[in-house]
């Protein structure tokens, strides 16, 4: 047996990372970038709370107006912008939420939201934090346009690898499509709902879909028992409907 000498990787940037291996410097750099956003957000939230407290205490229209001119969004804007320019997509989400407090005219807000949303979708739709992006699209749907939001959610559901972000997109799509008229929209909503119930039951949004679909009166005697997929501890899948033709007693239990 040949013994290999132990190679110490120096803890400095510039060492070429090997495939499938994260070097200490990579970890360090990633955490620095990530912390920069989280730290800035925390700093902003603290400043915002302080500003709100001052506003509550301020007496007179003049004092309040003067304070509004000093909204923390205006003070922090350039720093979030700097992070966004450096490739931090979450800073864009902060920016799109803060346009109004920045003092932008109402007529200028919609075009700016559209610009940022397009940027988010183009550059970050595969990001692991993109659940926040999905939330911002749904929240801003009046500015972005229903059709754009629907297409964006369909696209994120397709390209993002995160199971629960896919579920989130599908769940939001069901809600938006159901408000539309037309057979096609309802058919798409039904298909997505079935997908959520079948393939995303382990996600928060799969839960929500199930809970929303079932009302207490749906579980009264005389109603059809809701279909479910069960998996045994050994990975054997079965459906309630496999037992059609038999009298079935379902026992919800735990050994705890």
């Amino acid at each position, binding site marked *: 047996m040949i013994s290999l000498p132990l190679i110490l990787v120096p803890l400095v940037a510039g060492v070429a990372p090997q495939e499938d291996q994260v070097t200490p410097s990579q970890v360090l750099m990633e955490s620095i970038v990530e912390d920069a956003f989280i730290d800035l957000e925390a700093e902003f939230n603290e400043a915002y709370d302080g500003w709100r407290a001052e506003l509550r205490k301020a007496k007179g229209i003049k004092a309040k107006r003067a304070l509004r001119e000093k909204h923390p969004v205006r003070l922090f804007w350039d720093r979030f912008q700097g992070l966004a320019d450096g490739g931090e997509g979450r800073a864009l989400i902060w920016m799109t939420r803060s346009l109004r407090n920045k003092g932008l005219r109402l007529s200028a807000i919609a075009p700016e939201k559209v610009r940022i949303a397009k940027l988010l979708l183009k550059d970050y739709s595969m990001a692991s934090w993109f659940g926040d992006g999905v939330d911002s699209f749904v929240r801003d749907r009046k500015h972005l346009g229903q059709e754009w939001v629907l297409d964006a959610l369909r696209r994120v559901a397709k390209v993002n690898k995160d199971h629960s972000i896919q579920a989130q997109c599908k769940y939001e799509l069901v809600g938006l499509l159901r408000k539309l008229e037309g057979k096609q929209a309802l058919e798409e909503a039904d298909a997505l709902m079935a997908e959520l119930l079948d393939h995303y039951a382990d996600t928060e949004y799969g*839960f929500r879909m199930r809970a929303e679909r079932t009302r207490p009166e749906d*579980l009264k005697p005389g109603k059809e028992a809701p279909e479910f997929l069960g*998996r045994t*501890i050994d990975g054997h899948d079965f459906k*309630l409907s496999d037992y059609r033709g038999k009298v079935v007693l379902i*026992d*919800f239990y*735990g*050994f*705890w």
Partner: protein
Amino acid sequence: MPHLQELVKLHQDSPFALIGVNTGDDPETFRKGVEKHGVSWISAYQGEESPIADLYKVSGYPTYFLIDAKGIIVASGHSSSAMDPKIKQLLSDMKKSRD
């Protein structure tokens, strides 16, 4: 659990199935429990999560749902022995309609 074993044995030659849906047990507790209590029937294992129990709006344990051969809910409740006469009734109704 002994009652459920009797129930399964009593109806082993009838079109009857007991389906367990376990919630809240870690794998080890579950496997030990299955062995100790002689759970021979099929049982869904949900671990920490509870999609099926949520779907059925289960708020206490145990909870039973009795379902007929067409998939229609007949009764629900927290006592398995209260289900006995109803199960017998359903099975004898099925037998009569076949004969």
